[in-house]
């Protein structure tokens, strides 16, 4: 005669095993579909910031960079390269504004090697709905104000929100969010401009 505690423990273990096996199976089944969704999301964004490029080629020519002082994250981020006739004509940089109103704002920015921003998009953020979330394109077209803006020594000061003496609009009631985004885009552009060796590094991203 088994002790009831032993019996209960065994029963509980059995239920746990059943639950775990079902979930493992489900995870196996959904994994390809989830990977597909992530990839599609990424491809759509890549296409959005750099419509001229073939997305698959961008994905294949990607380097993984850790540069917290430029790109705002201590973990590696992807820099995609678009080549025309072997010469890099644009980089797509994943960057982070670490100083958003509520945490990190992840961005994707297309930049030419000379430091001209072609386009910028928000990947992920937790900014206040109704105030800071105007950095989403479906809420406001503010992100379009980065299109074809060049950064160079002479105009670094104008890369700021109007309140700080720059050229970019802030939002009514929210200055911290646009300030963080403008700074992050500026840093990404300067990073590309000052690191021409980015074009030469061998592609080393994990497969997407």
């Amino acid at each position, binding site marked *: 005669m088994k002790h009831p505690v032993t019996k209960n423990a065994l029963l*509980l273990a059995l*239920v746990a095993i059943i*639950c775990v096996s079902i979930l493992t199976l*489900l995870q196996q089944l959904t994994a390809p*579909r*989830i990977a597909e969704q992530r990839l599609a999301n990424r491809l759509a964004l890549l296409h959005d910031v750099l419509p001229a490029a073939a997305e698959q080629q961008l994905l294949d020519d990607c380097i993984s960079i850790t540069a917290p002082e430029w790109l705002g994250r201590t973990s590696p981020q992807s820099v995609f390269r678009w080549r025309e006739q072997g010469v890099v004509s644009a980089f797509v940089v994943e960057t982070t504004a670490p100083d958003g109103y509520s945490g990190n704002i992840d961005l994707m920015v297309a930049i030419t090697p000379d430091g001209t921003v072609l386009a910028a998009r928000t990947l992920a953020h937790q900014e*206040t709905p*109704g105030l800071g979330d105007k950095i989403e394109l479906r809420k406001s077209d503010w992100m379009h104000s980065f299109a074809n803006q060049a950064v160079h020594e002479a105009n670094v000061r104008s890369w700021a929100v109007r309140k700080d003496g720059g050229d970019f609009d802030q939002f009514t009631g929210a200055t911290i969010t646009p300030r963080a985004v403008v700074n992050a885009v500026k840093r990404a552009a300067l990073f590309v401009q000052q690191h021409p060796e980015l074009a030469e590094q061998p592609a080393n991203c994990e497969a997407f």
Partner: protein
Amino acid sequence: MSQNYKELATQGLWSNNPGLVQLLGLCPLLAVTNTVTNALGLGIATLLVLLGSNLVVSAIRNWVPREIRIPIFVLVIASFVTAVQLLMNAFTYELYLALGIFIPLIVTNCAIIGRAEAFASKNPMLPSAFDALMMGLGFAAVLLALGAMRELLGQGTLFDGADALLGSWAQALRVEVLALDHYFLLALLPPGAFIGMGLLIAGKNAIDQRKQRKQQVKTAITRARVTGTIV
């Protein structure tokens, strides 16, 4: 039997509504109801988890010893939540991103373990499933009412971003009711959720009280008539 089902339906949808009366699952309820779309997404997810967990708990109720029923219910519910999370990640990716942390938080929605313990563990599968359906619908209805209220006041729209949940055809659902220059922030932020919830509960109580008063008046009248016949 149908009387029973009717009773279950009124319990879940109105008189014992998990959102308005039991006040269970307030954390996700208040946090994600800033738009109708988010509310609908969370409502459906919670309904599915509740239905699944009630069915399973009811199916195994005769084999589960009393002493370990709670850990087993928790395991069952957690499994269902994880399954829903995986499925949403795979098939409604954008909504998955929008609801984020609140999908795993369905586990902590006391309405679910509450129904498992209070109803499903004592009743056959069919009534349990029906109970889950009604409780889930009741909860979803509160989510939707609050979501509609806050979205309307906050940004003057309804069904903004519904395409993330229902596919691209749903873009046509978006209604711009009021064109607001500035968002009414209070409605969109958590304090607005609390105030809105308070108003909903007050509204429900007011309706109940009025009904009660009417009933009292009716009984009073019937009594009068009864005495009348005796005389």
